[in-house]
């Protein structure tokens, strides 16, 4: 191939090394900017992450590429702890799918995209909020822990010890109960968000370590090659 700049590249007399170095520096800067821009939007990696949470008897799942882009039209399969498939379906345009929990057991939810990407998650007793689970307190259970509420409960049950509470106190009790209930319901979501954030933060050091491995492996190969050349 007769390249116009061939002589310059080989002989190096017509094109100063400075020009080549400048072009290389520009190319490297452009690649770095591309990488930094992508970091900014958190658009790294191409794995599918499957998130699931339970509200009442309904389980909501969502498949996301890189934790942000919806995995639409993906197949969802739900398996019990014996590996038996309980149900299957497809995600909508937002990568979401919901189903009524078919069985009170540990559920493995598997998502497969049309082009072969796969994500998996597990819904256990704690996520379902079962009474046996440590974190499975219902809103009513949680509210009944409050001493004031005991008094109000006695009042409703018509017992002789009448406790009078003011509207202000009632408002405080209700706020407390609602906050506690919301905290419990949202706890899985908070955990999910924290895991997504953690995955993103882990990417940069892993990327650098990958490049380090590559340089190390090829460095070792070069060492071996140079030893073979020696007489």
């Amino acid at each position, binding site marked *: *191939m*007769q*390249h*116009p*700049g*061939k002589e*310059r*590249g*080989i002989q190096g007399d017509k*094109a100063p090394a400075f*020009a*080549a170095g400048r*072009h*290389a520096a520009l*190319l490297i800067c452009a690649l770095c900017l*591309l*990488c930094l821009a*992508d970091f900014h939007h958190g*658009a*790294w*990696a*191409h*794995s*599918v992450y499957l998130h699931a949470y339970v509200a009442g008897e309904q389980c909501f799942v969502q498949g996301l*590429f*890189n934790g942000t*882009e*919806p*995995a*639409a*039209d993906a197949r969802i399969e739900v398996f019990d702890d014996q590996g038996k498939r309980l149900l299957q379906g497809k995600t909508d*345009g937002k990568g979401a799918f919901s189903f009524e929990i078919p069985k009170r057991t540990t559920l493995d939810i*598997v998502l*497969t*995209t*049309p*082009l*072969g*990407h*796969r994500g*998996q998650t597990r819904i256990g007793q704690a996520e379902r909020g079962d009474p046996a689970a440590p974190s499975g307190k219902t809103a009513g259970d949680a509210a009944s822990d409050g001493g004031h509420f005991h008094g109000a409960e006695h009042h409703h049950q018509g017992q002789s010890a009448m406790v009078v509470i003011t509207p202000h106190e009632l408002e405080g009790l209700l706020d407390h109960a609602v906050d506690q209930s919301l905290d419990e319901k949202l706890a899985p979501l908070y955990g999910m968000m924290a895991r997504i954030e953690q995955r993103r933060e882990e*990417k940069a050091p*892993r*990327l650098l*370590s*990958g*490049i380090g*491995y*590559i*340089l190390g*492996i*090829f*460095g070792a*190969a*070069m060492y071996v*090659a*140079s030893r*073979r*050349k020696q007489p």
Partner: protein
Amino acid sequence: MHVSEGVLAFPAIAAGWTGTTAIAVASLRAVEGKDLPKMAVLTAVFFVASLIHIPFGPTSVHLTLNGLVGVVIGIGAYPAILLGLALQAVLFQHGGLTVLGINGVLMGLPALAAYGIFRLGDGAAHRNKTALFGFLAGAAATALTGLLLALLLTTTGKAFLPVAKLALFAHLPLMVVEGLVTAAAVSFLARVKPEMLPGTHASREV
């Protein structure tokens, strides 16, 4: 365009490993000591590029640059791609170790095809023609990867044509991007360091 763990049956995985081992061994024989620094840089480029994704319609595609790796390294591109895929699987759970063989075939064979396409333009007297063959090599590698993926997914019971259409449609913008990146890179190399492009007159003169 990686295939994930758990999607393919054992025969497909075994065939992938067999094919990858055979091609990687043959490919390694073509590697010379002087090619190693270039291979290291291109492996790092492949490793990083596959982590940059582009949202597109119902799916998400990511740069592969296997065409560029094939054009610049030549026959020795296969083990470089295999190493990049292995690190992606270990560090990012991107693909997987059991399907590394099949992913090697998916990404590596198109890289070798891209090298062949680029070699067709050997002797091009004009810089634009070099860029054109670079574009064709980069775009064709992506298209071939999509077609191989569709072919592979037929082993899971899917019909070839709908999946092939989806794979090609989903990777259409990526074909353009990969073609442009490869064209820009080979134009740059042809101008400042043509001996880096294997199989060309310049590299043979070195």
